[in-house]
Each structure stands twice: as structure tokens, then as C-alpha cells.
């Protein structure tokens, strides 16, 4: 079983739609959960992070974590063409430390005007 599973897409939706992006993970020791956004020909940038199970909202974005199911989601409300990007879930090393993040493969999202 792969450590992180994420559908690569592409996921194409019309402007204004609600978008749901998801990752499943197998390592129950993961404590923090991040979403990075990567525009074409750019490096990833942190969008949101969460710690506990439940929801965290930031503007049009909501991150949801279900630790019991090892499942995280990112919802985008009122999607805009500028949201078109690749979205990567990311997991810091359990216990902290300087190690790198474990990334999902990323979902390529296209918002059609």
C-alpha cells in the first residue's frame, strides 16, 4: 500500500462550482496535514495546514481531516479560473524534525470560465 494516494486528475469543473480534492494516507503517525498549491512552471506554495480532525476554513478554502479514516480533503467554494493549478497534499514527518515532507502526487485542477 502506498503511503499517500491522490488522484492525479485532471479534474475539470465550471467556474463557480464547489471543488473537492482528496488524499488518503496509510501512516497513522502523521499528525499534521498540509495542502500545497502549484501553478504551472512554479514551485509549490503552502495553502493550508491542519492538525486535528475536523474542519479548518480560510476564505473560500476548507481543509477537512478524518484521522479515523486516514482521509483528508480540500474544498474550494465559488471556484475561479485563477484556482487552476495542481494541489498537493503533504505530511510533515511524525514527531517533527528536519526531514522532508511526504507529498501526494498532486491533483491537476482546471476551472473552466
Amino acid at each position, binding site marked *: 500500500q502506498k503511503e499517500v494516494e*491522490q488522484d*492525479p486528475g485532471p479534474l475539470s469543473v465550471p467556474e463557480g462550482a464547489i471543488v473537492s480534492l482528496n488524499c488518503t494516507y496509510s501512516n497513522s503517525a502523521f*499528525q*499534521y496535514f*498540509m495542502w500545497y498549491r502549484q501553478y504551472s*512552471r*512554479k*514551485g*509549490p*506554495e*503552502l495553502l493550508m*495546514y491542519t*492538525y486535528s480532525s475536523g474542519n479548518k476554513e480560510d476564505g473560500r478554502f476548507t481543509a477537512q481531516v478524518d484521522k479515523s479514516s486516514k482521509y483528508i480533503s480540500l474544498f474550494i467554494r465559488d471556484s475561479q479560473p485563477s484556482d487552476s493549478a495542481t494541489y*498537493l497534499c503533504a505530511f*510533515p*514527518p511524525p514527531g*517533527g*524534525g*528536519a*526531514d*522532508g*515532507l511526504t*507529498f*501526494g*502526487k*498532486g491533483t491537476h485542477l482546471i476551472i473552466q470560465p
Partner: protein
Amino acid sequence: DVKVTQSSRYLVKRTGEKVFLECVQDMDHENMFWYRQDPGLGLRLIYFSYDVKMKEKGDIPEGYSVSREKKERFSLILESASTNQTSMYLCASSRLGGASTDTQYFGPGTRLTVL
């Protein structure tokens, strides 16, 4: 504004050449990372460093080495480039402290093609 810069956006090299990819950050971060990003495989950690002259292997270190002589600079070295090292290379940095929510800031990437 935080900044991670990489020496080249695009690079074309021949098989067997020695290749240097440079990364500089201006945020006084202790941690620096090199990833490669490939379609269908996502981002994979090659090496990381948590201090000057310190380095640790990531998930795919084979065929690569790194150098960190100064805090702000982290170099990735391909001793003898091969075609399977054609990829997008991303450098990142973060501050030390063990806080797992510390953001990793990424550079724009270097797209390396090995012919």
C-alpha cells in the same frame, strides 16, 4: 518577501557531464531540501540539510550529492548525468525548530534535460 532562488530555470546537459544546481535562500533558514518532481511520481526527496556542512539522504539519493558550505546556499550535484535524471528539480527551505507546521518555501524549479 521570502525568497528561494535557483540558478537556472532550464538546463540542457549531455550524458556523463557533471551538473551543478544551485539554490539560495534569503530567510536565514537552517533547513534546506532538494526534491525532484516527475509526472506520475510526484515530489520525491533527494537530500536535505539541517545545518552548514550537514547533509542527510532522502528517499532517492543515488546518483546525487550535495554541498552546504554556507547557510544560505545548498547545491545539488549530479556527478555523471544520465538520461533518467531528466526532471524538474525543486529546492526548498524552512526554519529549524521541529515545528511540523513550519512552511517549506520552494524555489521556482530547474527543468533539467539530459541528452
